[in-house]
C-alpha cells in the first residue's frame, strides 16, 4: 500500500529500481540464459539426443514419482496439521509448529544422512529390513522418503497463515448449527484456502523436483534405477558432457518457469479474493 502523496524523490526512486533490477538480472536471470545458451551450443540434434537418452528419461520418471508422492503426502499432512493448529487451542501448540518446521531448516545432506542412519544397514532398523528383504536406502523407496522429508512443511507453511488469519468463528458457528466435521471443512474451511493450497502444492512440487543434496546421499547413484533428474545432471557434468548436462537442465528450467508462472497466477487470484 503506497503511502499517498509523499514527496518521493524521483532520482532515488529510479536509482533504487535500476539497482534492484540489475541485481536481480545478474543474479537470477543470467543463470537461466546461460542454461539455455549452453544447452543449444552444439546444435539441435545433440540437444534432442541428450533429452531422449534412456537414462535421462528414467531419471525424469523417478523425479516425477518422488515429487508426486511428496506432494500427495505433504498435502494430506498440511491440511490436517494446519486445521489442527489454527482451529484448536492446546498446550504444546508452539512446540508442534516448531517441530514441523525442522525439515525446512536443516541441510539436505543431513536429511539424507538421517535416513541412512535409520534405514541403512548400520541403522537401527537395518536388521529388521534386511531380514524382510526390504531395501530402502540406495533404492527407490529411499529416494521417495528423502524427498517427502525435505519438502514436508511446504504445504503446511502456505496453508497455516491463511487458516489462522480466518480464525475459528465461522467453523464454530457451523458446528453450533449442527454441521458435521467433514461438511464444515468442505464448505467453510476449504474455500478460504483454495489458492493457498494450490500455491503450496506447486511450491512443494518444485522443491521436490529440484532436491539434490538429500537424494544424492541416499540414492546410491545407480543409473537407470535410483537417479533423479538433478542427479543425472551431476553425472553428466562429472563426465564433462556439459552440453548434455545443460540440455537436461533446460528441461528443469522449463518446468521451473512454468511453476513460477502458475505461482504468479495463483498469487494474483489469491489477492483478488481479498486476502489480507
Amino acid at each position, binding site marked *: 500500500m503506497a503511502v499517498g502523496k509523499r514527496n518521493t524523490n524521483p532520482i532515488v526512486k529510479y536509482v533504487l529500481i535500476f539497482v534492484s533490477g540489475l541485481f536481480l538480472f545478474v543474479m537470477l536471470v543470467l543463470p537461466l540464459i546461460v542454461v539455455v545458451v549452453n544447452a543449444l551450443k552444439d546444435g539441435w540434434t545433440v540437444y534432442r539426443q541428450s533429452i531422449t537418452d534412456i537414462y535421462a528419461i528414467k531419471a525424469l520418471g523417478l523425479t516425477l514419482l518422488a515429487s508426486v508422492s511428496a506432494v500427495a503426502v505433504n498435502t494430506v499432512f498440511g491440511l490436517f496439521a494446519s486445521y489442527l493448529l489454527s482451529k484448536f487451542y492446546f498446550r504444546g501448540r508452539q512446540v508442534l509448529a516448531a517441530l514441523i518446521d525442522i525439515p525446512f531448516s536443516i541441510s539436505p545432506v543431513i536429511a539424507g*544422512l538421517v535416513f541412512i542412519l535409520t534405514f541403512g544397514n548400520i541403522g537401527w532398523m537395518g536388521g529388521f529390513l534386511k531380514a524382510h528383504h526390504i531395501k530402502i536406502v540406495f533404492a527407490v523407496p529411499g529416494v521417495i522418503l528423502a524427498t517427502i522429508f525435505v519438502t514436508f512443511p511446504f504445504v503446511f507453511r502456505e496453508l497455516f497463515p491463511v487458516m489462522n488469519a480466518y480464525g475459528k468463528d465461522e467453523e464454530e458457528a457451523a458446528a453450533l448449527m449442527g454441521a458435521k466435521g467433514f461438511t464444515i471443512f468442505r464448505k467453510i474451511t476449504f474455500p478460504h484456502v483454495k489458492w493457498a493450497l494450490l500455491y503450496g502444492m506447486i511450491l512443494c512440487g518444485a522443491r521436490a523436483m529440484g532436491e539434490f543434496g538429500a537424494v544424492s546421499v541416499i540414492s546410491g547413484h545407480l543409473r537407470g534405477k535410483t537417479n533423479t533428474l538433478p542427479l543425472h545432471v551431476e553425472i553428466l557434468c562429472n563426465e564433462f558432457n*556439459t552440453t548434455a548436462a545443460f540440455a537436461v537442465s533446460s528441461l528443469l528450467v522449463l518446468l521451473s518457469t512454468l511453476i513460477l508462472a502458475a505461482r504468479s497466477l495463483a498469487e494474483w487470484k489469491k489477492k483478488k479474493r481479498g486476502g489480507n
Partner: protein
Amino acid sequence: MEEIVKVKNKRGVRVIPGFGLSLGVTLSMLGCFVLIPLASIFLSAGRLEFSEFAAVVTSRQVMAGYRVSLSCAFWAALINTVFGMGLAWVLVRYDFPGRRLMDGIIELPFALPTAVAGISLTSLYSDQGWIGAYFAKRGITIAYTRIGITIAMIFVGIPFVVRSVQPVLEKLDGQYEEAAAMLGAGRGYTFLRVVLPEMFPALITGFGLAFSRGIGEYGSVVFIAGNIPYETQIAPLLIMEKLEQYKYTDATAIALVLLLLSFIMMLIMNSIQISMQRFTRNL
C-alpha cells in the same frame, strides 16, 4: 498480546469437531517421516565416544570446512539483507512496469533445482564465463574460490530477506512517516528513525534464514566451490565425503555440530528480536 479464546464450552467439550482425528494424523505423520528418522542421529551420536567425537570435529580439515561455510554464509546473508531491503522497498513503495515480473522472479531460487543453479553459476563465473572472463582479465578468479561460494549462497538466499520484509512494509502505517514529515524531519532521517526500526525484526529474521540456508546448502554451492581442502570445502560437502567413505560416525559427528550451530544461530536471532521488540513497542 492477542486474547486466547477458549474453544471449549462450560462442560469442557470442544465445539469444533475433528480434534482427535487431526491430532492423530498430524502426530503420526510427523513422527513417522520426521521425528523418528531425526532421532537416529542422536542415537548414533550417543554411541560415539566423546574423544572420538572431539577428534573428528576439531580436525584441521573439518574446522576449515566450518570456517568456509560460516564466513561465506555470513557475507552472503549480509549482502542479501542490504539488497533484500532495497528490493522489498522498491516492490512495495513504487509502481512501475515490470513490477509484477520482478516480484515473481524473486521466487526463482525456490523453484529452480539446486543442481541446475550450481552448474549454471559455475559456467557463468568460470574464467571463460560471461562474467568470470571479465574479472579474470583483471586477475580475479571467482569460480572455485570463496567468492564463488558466496555468490552461490547469495543466489539461494535472495527470497528470504525480501519475503520477510515485504509484509512488514506493506502493513506499515503511513501516518508515522507523515507525522515525521510534518514535524520537519527529512526523508533520510525519517527512514532511519521511523521505518528502519520497524523493519529491523524482519531484517533479522531474513538474515537468519538466509544464513541458515547458506550453511546448509549443498547443490548450488558444491559445483562452484571446487572443493579444495582447507580452502573451499563447505561443511555439507565434508559430511558427504565421509559418507562416501562409509565413515558414518564421522559424518554424524560433523552433522551434529552443524545442527548445533544452526540451533545457536536461531537462539541468537530470537533473542535479538525479543530485545528489539521492547524497543519498537515504545511507539
